């Protein structure tokens, strides 16, 4: 057989063998990976809404704790998310697409907003995904805000590929706890937002409400990415929810 043909055949065979091996392994592990992702997503959403596992006091958590460290029981976790929150799909109109200027959100025909309104009470909080640009790639976060979009309830970073030990520390409690009760009024309602990162913040916003967050040392570009994401996407969701009040009317 011609040498070139045999070389090409060899490459084809070995590529098929290795791809088949990887496809098999991926098939075997896919359900486990999907379950892990679903658990992690549920933990993040509940954390952002300030819902923690029973017996966990957030004020005693170490600064390096991430959401995945929270000791949720898998069954309780899924039960809690279904009983406390309702996902609502909001249609994205042509007008709504204009509000996306500067945002990295890429909605299709609808966008999902989570609503906390257990026991048919009026809306207690809204939660939704944000997307921004970090140093190495896209940052995705889930944020919960109060019904009038004046305070953030909490945030969790659900997807990011920032530098481990530097930018990736945005996923740690030390950074995220400053989002609790953060003043976001100016972000949603005025053209100039007051939101800023400071080098050293003395009190958390739960003690004294401000529009300040504490930056992560050595992660300026990641922090700037987070700020830009908040400025563009919060305003977008504020406009979107204001334009669709009928979707969130109290259920009777």
């Amino acid at each position, binding site marked *: 057989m011609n*040498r070139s043909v*045999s*070389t090409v055949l*060899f*490459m084809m065979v*070995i*590529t098929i063998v*290795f791809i088949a*091996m*990887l496809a098999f*392994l*991926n098939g075997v*592990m896919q359900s*486990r*990976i999907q379950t*892990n*992702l679903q658990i*992690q997503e549920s933990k993040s959403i509940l954390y952002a809404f300030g819902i923690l596992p029973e017996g966990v006091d957030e004020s005693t958590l*170490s600064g*390096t704790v*991430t959401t*995945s*460290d929270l000791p949720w029981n898998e069954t309780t976790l899924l039960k809690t998310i279904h009983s406390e929150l309702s996902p609502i799909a909001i249609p994205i109109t042509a007008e709504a697409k204009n509000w996306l200027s500067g945002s990295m959100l890429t909605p299709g025909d609808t966008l999902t907003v989570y609503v906390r309104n257990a026991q048919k009470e009026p809306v207690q909080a809204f939660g939704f995904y944000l997307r921004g640009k970090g140093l*190495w*790639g896209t940052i995705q976060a889930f944020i919960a805000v109060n019904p009038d979009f004046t305070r953030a309830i909490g945030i969790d970073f659900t997807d*990011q*590929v*920032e*530098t*481990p*030990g*530097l930018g*990736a520390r945005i*996923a740690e409690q030390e950074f995220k706890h400053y989002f609790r009760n953060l003043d976001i009024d100016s972000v949603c309602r005025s053209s100039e937002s007051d939101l800023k990162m400071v080098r050293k913040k003395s009190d958390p916003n739960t003690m004294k409400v401000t529009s300040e967050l504490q930056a992560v*040392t*050595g992660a300026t570009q990641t922090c700037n990415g987070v700020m830009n994401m908040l400025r563009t996407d919060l305003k977008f969701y504020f406009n979107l929810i204001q334009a669709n009040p009928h979707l969130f009317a109290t259920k009777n």
Partner: protein
Amino acid sequence: MADSKAVQIIKEDLWRSNPVTVQILGICSTLAVTNIFLNTLIMGLGLTFVTAFSALTISVLRKVIPQRVRMMVQTLVISSFVVIVDISLKAYVPDISKSLGPYVGLIITNCIIMGRMEAFASSNTPGLSFWDGLMSGIGYSWILLVIAFVRELLGFGTMLGVQIMDPLMHSIGVSTGWVQWSFMIMAPGGFFMLATFIWISNHLFAIRAANKGA
């Protein structure tokens, strides 16, 4: 004969021709992941697994791989094992997979692996090649672990996430506790530690050479 070669490989890969301190390979991940000890440990295990099994596979196939496509085959084999590591981390230790971010995928580009395939596995028996891959991975890992130990301890004051320096400072009467060395957490801290390590090892080599000459 094989035994003495196996011992030789241990000495070469762990110290005399260490991939990090002597060959200066795998520097990107050395700087990037060594600020957290646990991440470094997982990275080291991942790279050791990939190097050892890629070397074994290449060695088994060495007589049937056409010479002109050998590097393509090596890349295919290495990337397949990296994907196995990536999928396994996502399935069994998703938190660590998340915190290592892109660096697991970047094991493919680590020059140590390709170097061992080309320099050793493609011309040695499967057993020795596997051993060489394993030792090269361990040679890379132990240097990284030493660097990570110092960086996490000084940078965060912790070891494996447990606060060490704060209680130590309080116990010797420093009321402010441990002041974190932010420099150690950042990439320049990695450069500094690596350079220090290379300097120490070169110094030891020089002393040894001088003693032999005397």
